[in-house]
């Protein structure tokens, strides 16, 4: 029986990579847990409240989106709407064209990965450069991020040093400090030359129109200090109702993502720079991106739109820890990706229909999620969808269980099977050419058959 694609990928990973993904996710997860429980009297109540706030947001997008738009416009921000990935790329391109801009610097945004902005702009003669250190390394390597928060969790310093040498960023040196300084020198020149700074958006408050951005490196600050235009690509679900809710969510985000009380740089942006400020954007644009989100909203899995992209569910997931992010073949890896990616894929759902099975359903992802997304439930709903729609990928690695289902649903057949089942203890089961059994026993030992004795016990029990 064929392996599930994710297992096959995990098996193909060099052991040292697997080990490093395992160790670093485990370390971050443990720190996160300690910090939350040390700091808050009731972290669970905190996460559940955050979850209810975000659930309110997604179920009230019809009023919150126009409210946020009105505030943004009143603050001097130009608002654009992009139903598809192509529309979002075209909107960025259009803004650049109108300014005669050719150079763009990006602060890490998952939406720009999702809409494949860089190749779109490069094809049209524009330069789009990643400035987050990890994303920059990904870009020069023509690779993909494998974690939402730690994009190069899958690369070691030797690989990075080799890439830097190849790109002419100095002789081979794999000291992390040297690598970082070289990137600093190279990138600060790029910020200063760029016409446009592009960011994502962690939150937008519908109350004030404040856009919130968090980074540790300060690259988003640089993207908003040197260039004259700021473009923010924001998924339509990224709203919060009130400014004070930001206080709650920010308290959770840093701790859940990297076990920090607060991320180093947390920006609250309401518009273009103040007239007294010499640096920073004279123009600010927000592009609200749909790209499948409204379909997710219409689905049975809308809770996934609460996600604040902290990566905590990746760090705790036993499957992610073994397989790493590329195994998920999509922009969003780990448990969140297993739900979100197949949904965002729209008509291509069958292509990713195996992802909801990349889970042990242990529930750890739900337990750590700062917005309390019931990921295991959503995975089950998606497994069901895969099965109902007959997606072939949804059944890879699953033995055909039709015969079993028939037997288990007929009381007479079931009783007969229980009575006769003892025979199995005397048969070398591994040799039976029955695929479901073979697949099951290939990684497990069949326990001794003891079926039927409960019924006997029940029957012979002295009545009270």
């Amino acid at each position: 029986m064929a392996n599930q694609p994710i297992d096959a990928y995990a098996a193909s990973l060099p052991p040292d990579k697997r080990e490093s993904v395992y160790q670093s996710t485990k370390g971050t997860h443990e720190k996160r847990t300690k910090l939350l429980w040390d700091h808050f009297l009731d972290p669970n109540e905190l996460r559940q409240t955050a979850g209810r706030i975000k659930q309110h947001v997604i179920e009230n997008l019809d009023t919150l989106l126009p409210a946020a738009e009105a505030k943004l416009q009143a603050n001097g921000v130009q608002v654009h709407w992009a139903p598809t990935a192509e529309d979002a790329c075209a909107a960025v391109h259009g803004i650049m064209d109108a300014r005669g801009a050719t150079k763009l610097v990006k602060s890490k945004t998952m939406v720009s990965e999702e809409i494949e902005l860089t190749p779109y702009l490069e094809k049209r003669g524009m330069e789009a450069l990643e400035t987050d250190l990890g994303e920059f390394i990904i870009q020069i390597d023509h690779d993909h991020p494998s974690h939402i928060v730690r994009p190069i969790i899958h690369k070691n310093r030797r690989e990075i040093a080799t890439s830097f040498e190849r790109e002419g960023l100095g002789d081979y040196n794999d000291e992390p400090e040297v690598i970082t300084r070289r990137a600093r020198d190279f990138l600060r020149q790029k910020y200063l030359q760029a016409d446009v700074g592009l960011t994502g958006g962690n939150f937008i408050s519908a109350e004030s129109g404040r856009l919130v951005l968090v980074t540790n490196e300060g690259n988003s600050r640089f993207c908003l200090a040197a260039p004259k235009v700021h473009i923010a690509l924001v998924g339509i679900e990224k709203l919060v109702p009130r400014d004070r809710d930001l206080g709650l969510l920010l308290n959770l985000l840093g701790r859940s993502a990297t076990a920090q009380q607060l991320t180093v740089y947390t920006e609250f942006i309401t518009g273009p720079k103040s007239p007294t400020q010499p640096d920073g954007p004279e123009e600010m644009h927000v592009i609200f991106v749909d790209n499948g989100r409204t379909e997710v909203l219409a689905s049975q899995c809308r809770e996934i739109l609460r996600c604040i992209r902290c990566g905590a569910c990746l760090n705790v997931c036993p499957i992610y820890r073994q397989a790493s992010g590329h195994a998920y073949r999509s922009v969003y890896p780990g448990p969140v990706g297993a739900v979100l990616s197949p949904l965002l894929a729209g008509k291509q759902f069958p292509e990713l229909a195996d992802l909801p099975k990349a889970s042990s359903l242990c529930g750890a992802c739900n337990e750590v999620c700062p917005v309390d997304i019931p990921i295991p439930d959503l995975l089950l709903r998606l497994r069901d969808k895969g099965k109902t729609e007959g997606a072939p990928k949804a059944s890879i690695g699953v033995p055909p269980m039709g015969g079993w289902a028939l037997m288990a649903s007929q009381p007479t057949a079931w009783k007969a099977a229980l009575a006769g089942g003892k025979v199995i203890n005397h048969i070398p089961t591994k040799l039976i050419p029955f695929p479901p059994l073979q697949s099951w026993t290939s990684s497990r030992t069949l326990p001794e058959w003891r079926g039927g004795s409960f019924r006997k016990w029940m029957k012979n029990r002295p009545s009270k």
Partner: protein
Amino acid sequence: MSSARDQILKRVNDALAPLPERAPLPDWDRELVHVRETAIPPSTDLWALFSERLKSVNGEPVDDLATLVNLLRENGWLHGYCDPALWPELQSAFDESFTVETDFDRTRVDDYAFGITAVAGAIAETGTLILGDNTTSSRLGALTPWAHIAVVRDAQIHPDILAAINALPEDPNLIFVTGPSKTADVEGILIEGVHGPGRQLALRR
């Protein structure tokens, strides 16, 4: 053809129409986000608490101007930028071994070893500095030098994040800075000063 905006809002409406009811907006009490060990009594010396928290995120509190100038000299940071509004107040402590400019020249970002700017506020709970466009004389002046010195006055310190958010001043760009710029992208090893300051100082005034 309807506009992109109408298209998205229509899809949102259609998606939400079948919901029998909408999730209500929960209210929450500030106790919920009170950090246990810093439930701060009103009489607390906020500068002391802020200093301690700043140190825990690898920032450096500096209690007086003379100490700051010595520190700059010891590190060989002799060329810097200073907010023109602060310079008259600080100038007398700097001797002629220093070159301090009050105009930030973006073509020479690497020439400045330090940048001195004012804050819009600070947060004791997290050791955070708040910079704003109206209070920070130059975004680049606070960001590109290796050492950033934020000038903090006691009355500007908020006890916690929530208090700071509830009192955010009118400003198009406010930034909470909690320690020096850092990354752990390379094998999870912490390196400071990746794009912004490698040293984050706060001077009490």
